[in-house]
């Protein structure tokens, strides 16, 4: 069920996920489109998430935005009042008590473990968006596993010090009992500065012909069932509930929106297994998280192999 409307206020709005916006020049959404988008969300009972560019919006825009309950996603440096701050990099100052997003390669992540650990005590939540999932090879399994376990050790220390930590790669899975994925096109849809709807911002930035309707004619998502979990043969048998299940990456790598790549599956499973590692370490330290269920041990990193064995 559609629940969220993401409104990209400008072509240069901060990327909070796997896509890149660096190729785009400024294009502010039309004020009438912004108003119409808000009206659409209100009538469809959708929660709005505004994604801001790195410059001050005109006052009339801010006034319209403020007319509706919403969430603000803003880039670092222009993040006053933001609910979510997209960091520029590992050298950024993180705002206290806020949810932050950082883009990082696995290598950068491994190199910034002390920085990451220091952040975990200060931010309310940290979402790490890996920028090199697509190029992940099986030879990198051991090193990414090692990185995640090192982060988990740092998380345990935070908990021992009495601080609750939220880190998407490790702690989300602890609390999940079912898939909790991106939901592009299923629970979430995006309104772009061109006044048209897209399954998610990535589809807009990739090719504007991939729109799924506009503010005049409404949403027109073809094959919506294929965006749902029950129509994804690999994902529906999987328990890497933390996986983003990025349908844009699916389309890029496997050519079908409901089929994840080997890379996405392996990365999600390494994170799942690291969550189990964290769970064990917390348990050893006598820390029990309310609502956390035991994550089962699993060697298979790609559920595609499980599905194929059944067939």
């Amino acid at each position: 069920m559609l629940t969220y409307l993401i409104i990209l206020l400008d072509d240069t709005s901060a990327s909070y996920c796997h896509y890149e916006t660096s190729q785009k020049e400024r294009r502010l959404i039309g004020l009438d489109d912004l108003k119409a988008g808000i009206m659409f969300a209100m009538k469809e009972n959708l929660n709005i998430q505004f994604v801001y560019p790195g410059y001050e919006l005109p006052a009339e825009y801010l006034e319209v935005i403020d007319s509706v309950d919403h969430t603000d996603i803003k880039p670092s440096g222009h993040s006053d009042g933001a609910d979510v701050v997209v960091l520029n990099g590992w050298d950024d100052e993180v705002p206290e008590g806020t949810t932050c997003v950082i883009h990082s390669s696995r290598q950068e992540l491994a190199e910034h473990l002390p920085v990451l650990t220091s952040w975990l005590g200060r931010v309310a939540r940290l979402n790490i968006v890996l920028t090199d999932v697509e190029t992940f090879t099986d030879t990198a399994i051991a090193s990414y596993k090692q990185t995640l376990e090192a982060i988990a050790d740092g998380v345990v220390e935070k908990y021992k010090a009495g601080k609750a930590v939220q880190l998407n790669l490790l702690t989300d899975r602890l609390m999940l009992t079912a898939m909790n994925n991106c939901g592009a096109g299923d629970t979430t849809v995006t309104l772009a500065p061109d006044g048209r709807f897209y399954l998610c911002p990535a589809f807009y930035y990739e090719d504007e012909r991939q729109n799924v309707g506009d503010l005049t004619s409404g949403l027109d998502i073809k094959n919506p069932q294929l965006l749902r979990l029950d129509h994804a043969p690999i994902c529906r048998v999987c328990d890497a509930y933390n996986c983003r299940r990025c349908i844009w990456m699916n389309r890029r790598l496997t050519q079908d929106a409901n089929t994840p790549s080997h890379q996405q599956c392996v990365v999600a499973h390494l994170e799942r297994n690291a969550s189990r590692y964290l769970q064990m370490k917390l348990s050893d330290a006598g820390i029990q998280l309310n609502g956390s269920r035991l994550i089962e041990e699993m060697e298979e990193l790609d559920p595609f192999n499980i599905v194929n064995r059944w067939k």
Partner: protein
Amino acid sequence: MAKSITFIVTKDCQLACKYCYLVGKNTKERMSWEVAKEAIDYILEREQEFNEESVIWDFIGGEPFLEIELIDKICDYLKMEMYRRGHHWFDSYRFSFSTNGINYHTEKVQRFIEKNHNHLSVGITIDGTKRKHDLNRVWKKQDPPPTSPCKGREKLPIDGKHRADTIYSPPSQGGAGGESERGSYDDVVRNIPLWLEQFPGAATKVTISSPDIPYIKESVLHLYSLGIKEVNINCVFEDVWHEGDDKAFEQQLTELADEIIDNDLFRDHACSFYSEHIGKPMDREKDNQNWCGAGKMLAIDATGNFYPCTRFAAYSLRSKPAWIIGNIHDGIDQNKLRPFLTLDRTTQSKPECIDCEVASGCAWCQGENYDAADTHTVFQRSTVICRMHKARVRANNYYWNKLFRKLELEGRREEYEKQKSKVKETTC
């Protein structure tokens, strides 16, 4: 289980069949020996990856026998390499052809058949009576007269440079400039006796489109009269059907059932329209397999690209881009195979198909599904064939009810059950 590996050796054909799904046939894209050899080397070097117990090396076009010299060279190389490498496919392989039959009698084709007979399957497509066959299977209109024998017939070597070659000349057409349509029946039927002599159990493949419906009965009976004992026949999967086609189709199949049963033809002839196993509900868990083998097969075209089946090559697609899964240089991208290898019946079917009371035997073509889909996906099953399937089921029910009653009345039911041959379902 056998691996099916298809070489699209040419996208040219002497014919321009009206129901042909190949929308991009042309005289330019001919496989070069360099591409073929590299493809073979790629496949045979990866014995662990291609670990099926046997292999069908399939040659398709266009018309594959237009490239008989290349095919002969490919097959020689395959045999030699499978032997040299001690490959488990050596002596567990077949060469398979589906041909329009026009060049069947030629010296080069006959020499090839003689050389490879024990490992060869050849199917000649003949659609039935002359008027039925010639309705669709017509010679293509002749290109402008060539300035040299090789014009328009160039091979595409792996480096992209063209080289000239001369292989065949199209026949003269019925009228000046080829304005009138010329059917190919006479050019095919003359080769049927030779074909049946060389392959006595051979089957033919008949394709039904909307205009063919009135001729189904006479055509199947005609093929039987030519000595062909097995007729594999199916309706095209494309959206060609009109109001009332299902009723006319059912009538034809009912009348054909009468002819087959009343004249005892069922004893030693088969027609794939009639099967005891179709027209039943299907369990959404136990009967959840995909119908089509796309993705388990492999096709290679003249440029060295790999496809999950020939139907995903550009020349087969009306409205979608080619679904390329790799090439002979970079190998197969396993990610691009994942959708095919996880396909099942229910995920790609509409609720009405999942709950259909006569679902079994209702076929689909994955390539056509993709081509007709609203999005870039293989998970949207086309249902344009629905009414035709239901018509087939009704006629099929009639066939078996009538046949079994006849056999029971004659006290031959038990004998029939022991002897009946299995008719294979042919869908592509």
